[in-house]
């Protein structure tokens, strides 16, 4: 277990700049998730920590020691790959013990470590099997086992669940989280799946375009996204967004939106009257009021049942607007519904800089 410090790290491939100065401190025992769309640089950053990519500029420290120039084998980290990268010509036990055998660990200690890890992951009966005879979930477990056996300073995960089906992904996600609770090792986990990030992370690092967009606890990112990217990326169904203009001159601060409506804000903003803003509202915070209630009336364009609840689409504020409700109400396409949003659920962003204003 060790802390990992990343200072002003940059990465270029020939003339392509992939990372533009990343700063990040990961505490001992913390579970940090790097999340972002493909091409955001998250995997490159992970691979630089692992030593699989050279550092163009900046410094990476593991347990306080600069590792920029160290070979992967000398960094004492373990990695779980997206493809699992199990050695096809070795049995499960040989896969798991390979790192210890390379280190000339005594045979009894290898056996203890392998059996311990196998017991933790329920791999006992599979130890003599070859990877190709295993199911996807079992391979994933073997890849985890290979990492655990060594008790490394840190675990690195590169989208380890993305080759599994939805059901198994949900289950393995919980298992990884419980395993982390048990072992407590520093972990860095890369994913493009915001639900995985939300449920696994102690802290999420949201990345886009080679830059860190926000770092924080999962519900911090969900409740107070720092900019439009994080607001749109985190949460499903995705946040509704629409353009507006700030009106702070009168008695109460408000946002003027297309259609001549004023949305009241709970606090006034530190921006000039008339600033162009983008307003965000999560679908679950859009309330469908009983008929006859005060509020804005809209025609329902589409109703999507997810089982858990309904996603109701209507045109509002010049955009396709979604409301999410757990009620199985009888709302149908063509109905007119009254919609309201509480001021505390409005997220306001500067339309130019895209950063959060409230």
């Amino acid at each position: 277990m060790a802390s990992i410090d990343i200072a002003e790290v940059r990465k270029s491939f020939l003339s392509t700049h992939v990372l533009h100065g990343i700063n990040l401190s990961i505490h001992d025992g913390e579970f940090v998730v790097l999340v972002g769309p493909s091409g955001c640089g998250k995997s490159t950053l992970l691979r630089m920590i692992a030593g699989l990519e050279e550092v163009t500029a900046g410094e990476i420290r593991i347990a306080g020691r600069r590792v920029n120039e160290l070979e992967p084998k000398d960094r004492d980290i373990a990695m779980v790959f997206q493809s699992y990268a199990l050695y096809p010509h070795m049995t499960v036990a040989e896969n798991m013990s390979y790192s210890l055998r390379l280190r000339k660990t005594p045979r009894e200690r290898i056996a203890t470590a392998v059996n311990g890890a196998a017991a933790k992951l329920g791999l006992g009966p599979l130890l003599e099997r070859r990877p190709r005879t295993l199911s996807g979930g079992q391979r994933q477990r073997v890849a985890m086992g290979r990492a655990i056996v060594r008790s490394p300073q840190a675990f690195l995960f590169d989208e380890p669940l993305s080759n599994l089906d939805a059901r198994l992904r949900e289950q393995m996600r919980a298992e990884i989280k419980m395993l982390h609770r048990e072992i407590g090792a520093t972990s860095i986990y890369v994913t493009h799946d915001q639900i995985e990030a939300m449920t696994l992370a102690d802290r999420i690092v949201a990345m886009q375009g080679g830059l860190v967009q926000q770092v924080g606890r999962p519900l911090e990112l969900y409740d107070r996204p720092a900019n439009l990217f994080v607001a749109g990326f985190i949460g499903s169904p995705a946040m509704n967004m629409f353009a507006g203009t700030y009106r702070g001159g009168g008695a109460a601060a408000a946002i003027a939106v297309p259609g001549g409506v004023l949305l009241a804000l709970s606090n006034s903003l530190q921006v000039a009257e008339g600033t162009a803003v983008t307003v965000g509202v999560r679908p679950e915070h859009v309330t469908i009021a009983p008929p006859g209630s005060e509020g804005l009336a809209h025609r329902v364009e589409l109703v999507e049942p997810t089982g858990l609840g309904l996603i109701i689409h209507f045109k509002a504020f010049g955009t396709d607007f979604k409301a999410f409700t757990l009620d199985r109400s009888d709302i149908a396409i063509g109905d007119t519904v009254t919609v309201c949003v509480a001021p505390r659920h409005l997220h306001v962003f500067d339309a130019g800089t895209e950063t959060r204003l409230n």
Partner: protein
Amino acid sequence: MRRPRRATLAVAHRLAILAYIIFALFPLFWLLKVSVTPNDLLYSEGIRMWPSQMTLDHYRFVLRHSDFPLFFRNSVIVSGSTSVIVTLLAAAAGYAMSRFVFRGKIWIVGLMLLTQMFPLVMLVAPIFRMLAPLGLTNSLGGLIIVYVAFNVPFATFLMQSFFDGIPRELDEAAMIDGATRFMAFRRIILPLTLPGLAATMGFVFTAAWSELLFALMLISSTDASTFPVGLLSFVSKFSVDFGQMMAAGVMALIPACLFFLFIQRYLVQGLTAGAVKG
């Protein structure tokens, strides 16, 4: 387009395959047939599919009274050494080409292609001049050197494509597990490329086995002649002794057949994988 049309297509398709097989196998069959036909029947029964009498005389003669056992030994030495050396070099170079990105890679590949297109005939004289002072003409060693030089580029290409088929993540997993790049190559990647190594080795072996130009030009003594040169000597004779030539030819096929049997299961694996995917 109704079913009958589809059925016709299927039949035509199968007939085309059959025709191809016959076309490909016919020379082999002819070879075998002539090699067991007694000389006196060779012309009288020339167009029969199988001679009325069979004989192994040609084989006996070739084995006992000709230099072919010696040619065979020479060819085995030359082709064997060449294929082992080329495969080792190509494995190392192919791995580098597959795993490392570097400027100028495209030009190296271009050069490799260009050297493949060289009319080799033009190089006979310069190579002879280079090898003569070193005492490497008229020697199997010289031939091996020449064959290695000419086969390394394509073999490298071949090995690269095999390495490209093995995910990079396996090297990386091994390096994170504590191996150096070289150990990852030797202990993880190389064992997984065994079919590729076998295929490359076989390719080089047969290329060297049937090479004629340099074998003819660099070697003048019978002691260091290879099989193809021996076969050519039949043609050069005033009257071609077809029976003996074909008997020798059948023997020349032995290593190719052995090799095909040897790599067959790898081929089946590879093709089946492709078929299921498709």
